[in-house]
């Protein structure tokens, strides 16, 4: 069985990519949005969020820009790059296949 963090890390990436696909946002907002959209089920903590954001930036899938936030303070806004969009599509498809397969096994027997 792979390390739990691997699985979680991978899904956090996917969630982040999907969230900022709609519009660029800063880390705090991404966490909030994920909470909202999952009906409070998925709570991405800071310790998982920021490492993931930095990794995605390193990969070149997201890019960052410093802007003034709604609370009138400076914040780092992330947006998808072109490569990121492609990665998102790929990750999403993979997730679908994976979760479908798991569901298949779990639901039977």
């Amino acid at each position, binding site marked *: 069985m792979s390390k739990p963090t691997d699985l979680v890390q991978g899904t956090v990436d996917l969630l982040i990519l999907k969230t900022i696909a709609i519009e660029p946002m*800063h*880390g*705090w907002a991404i966490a909030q949005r994920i909470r909202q959209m999952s009906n409070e089920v998925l709570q991405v*903590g*800071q*310790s998982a969020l*920021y*490492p*993931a954001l*930095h*990794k995605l*930036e*390193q990969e070149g899938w997201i890019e960052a820009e*410093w802007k003034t*936030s709604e*609370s009138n*303070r*400076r*914040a*780092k806004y992330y947006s998808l790059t072109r490569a990121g969009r492609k990665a998102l599509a790929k990750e999403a498809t993979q997730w679908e296949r994976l979760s479908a397969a798991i569901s298949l096994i779990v639901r039977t027997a």
Partner: protein
Amino acid sequence: MRSLFRRTEVEQELDEELQYHLERQIDEGLAKGLPRDEARYAALRALGAITQNKEACRAMRGVSWIENTMQDLRYGARALRKNLAFTIAAVLALALGIGANTAMFSVAYGMLWRPLPYVDADRVAVVYMSYFPRDFRFGTMSVRDYLIWREDNRAFENPSLFRTLRMDIGGNIDAPEQVQGASVTAGFFSTLGVQPLIGRTFRVGEDKPGTGSRAVLSESIWRRRFGARPDALGQTILVNGVPSVIIGVMRDSFRFPRRETEVWTNLPLNPPPRYGPWFYRGVARLKPGVTLQQAQAEVNNIALRMMQRNPYYKRLTLPVLSLREALLGNSVKPALLVLTGAVGLVLLIAVVNVANLMLARATVRKREMALRLSLGAARARLVRQLLTESVLLAVMGGVTGLALAWGGVELIRAWNPGNLPLIDSVRLDWTALSFMILVSVSTGVLFGLAPAFESARTDLNSAIKEGGRTQAAGQTRGRTRATLVISEIAASLMLLVGAGLLLRSFMNLRAVTGGFSTPSRQILTMLISPGNAKYNDVPAGTAFYSEVLRRARNVPGVEMAALTDSLPPDRQGDADTFTVEGQSLALGEMNPVVSVITATSGLFQAFRIPLVKGRYFTEHDNQDSKPVAIVSEGFARRFFSNQNVLGRRIKHSGPGSGEQWMEIVGVVGNVKYLGPAVDTDPAYYMPFGQKYYTRMFLVVRSSGDAGRLAMLLRQEIQSIDPGVTLAQIGTMERALSLSVSQPRFDTMVLTLFAGIALLLAAVGIYGLISYSVAQRTHEIGVRMALGAAQADIVRMVVRQGALLAAIGIVLGLGGALALTHLLRTMLFGIDVRDPLTFAGAPLGMIVAVLLATLLPALRATRISPVVALRD
């Protein structure tokens, strides 16, 4: 990438980002109604450990290999700084090794590979002629031979001809002077592919007879006599009395055929009435697609035809050499190869030394390595870091050595042993720098590899435990170090033997005077050229030289004065064959070519050349008396079997030469005219009163140092006629010294290398024995407590060193026996297996080793048994 170059900025941003998140979290808390500090506390708790978070972010950003390397470098530099003694010792050893190699590389590269400043220089060849009995391997040809070659030539484009000669330059405001010059055919400059600095070079057809004399100057003489003014073009100067129009100036970088060649004039190709004189060499460019071997083959055929046309040419060859080979001469390459090999050996010894130092240090750093491994460092990372450290060390050594290399190269350029034109190609530039970096990095990896792997293999358990004194590991390491020291000793012994051989050979050379017994510092010589064309006429010239001798003899301090056209040890004036009266020679048969000297009567006395039989020349041997000659001892023995020499008659040059018969009136001792290392060839002398040349050497002997007389003599002689020029003024002492200038250089450099090697080997063994003594402190303490005398301790320590040295010496002798044959061409009067040298070098090594082991041995005796046992 940003994370690499804007480290602080990126870190600040991360702080800011996390800070923002924290604040929003607090705001949320506040919005829920919590008091500020509680909200903050809750926020912090929710956020988790910030440091770890930051660490995780950093980790995610990834660390590139550049960052790793920079970290390694920083770490390595710190480690080196902490251990300053080691670092300095290693850097010095490496500086010596790498510096010497870089210098040697510059020389070798400049001489052997750097492209010459001519267009396609590797397509240019020089053509010589050699035939029996004029057996100089790379000898000269005559104009007639050149014309035959040119007619049949197909392999070369535009064969050209040249000769060197001394030229009296006069005719403008400055005083006349004598320079080295060359007379060349019209295609000479275009064959070599060089463009003039200003003006032009010779045009096609300017070597036809009847063309006026034209001159091309070198930059140096142009600056000297014309102040580098462009209006020098078109002016006329006198070259050996002939008015010549200056048509161009060549750059200083063009030095052909000799380094000192300053004037080139056009050679009028008058159809020669006969063969000879043989003053010339050919230079030509290979046609596209033709190789040197093919050209040589074609030229060999032409040589056959030449022999058919001239029965006196026997075993005729036309050797063809590439331009570079021609410029190098035949003694430089072997010497260069030997010295390059030697310096490589020195570097090897330095590397072994540093490797030894590193192994010693590795033992000390065992705990540090073990600690890092236990904290999770990857072994590969550790190895890489240690290698980075050793490469850093090597590069530091290399950069330090650069100063040494630069000094060495400048010295060699200034010295220019052998007076090679190629010396201009020797310089310390980017090629040398790249070489230095390459060598530094390679040596760094070389000596760092073993210790690095060793360290990374550290067994954690035993290392962290106190002392880490694993017997097995310690022993292998000790054996490795001992082996390294043995190899150092062996290698430096080989160099010692080589240097010893060269030293003895050089001393032999220096001992060669060349056949005269007057102390060389008592003889001063100079080349006189009357300068004025009127002195080409014999009576006027003879009168001139009589005046020269009269004035010279009047200078206070001058015991004897004489004139000659040849000087020992290597300034041969003329060489020719001869005919013996009564000897029957078949058509095409000739006596061997020997040295021919024209001299006044005082020459033999001035040099104190011994008289074996008969008499010397006198003043009465002149135009009005019977023609006479004197022969050398070797001549008498070889051609007359030493019987009935006096009274026999010989003739200068070949049977058909039209010269007069000369009666042999004396036999004198052998004198060398072809160089100190060459076997003395037979010679015959003709009196100056009966054979006139315009240019003669003046020889004066004094009772003390003859050099003091130079200035006065100059003044006296130059005042005879304003056109007189003097050149090559110097004592015989200086001439003898110059004649061995190249062997001197080779010997000194090899001795220097051997000395460095010996020093490094001594330091190596010193280090090993010191370390061994330190390791055995306990044991020594026990021995002393049990009653061992100081002498016993010393003996024990020295024996350890002596054993290593013995093995090293045996190996070194073996290596030397195998390799010294490479020195064969460089040795004079000594065998490549000279027993004295082979016995003496180990002796020297033993002394050095004894000294090196004595210090630690003495230190061992000062170990207090009480202290030692306590540990």
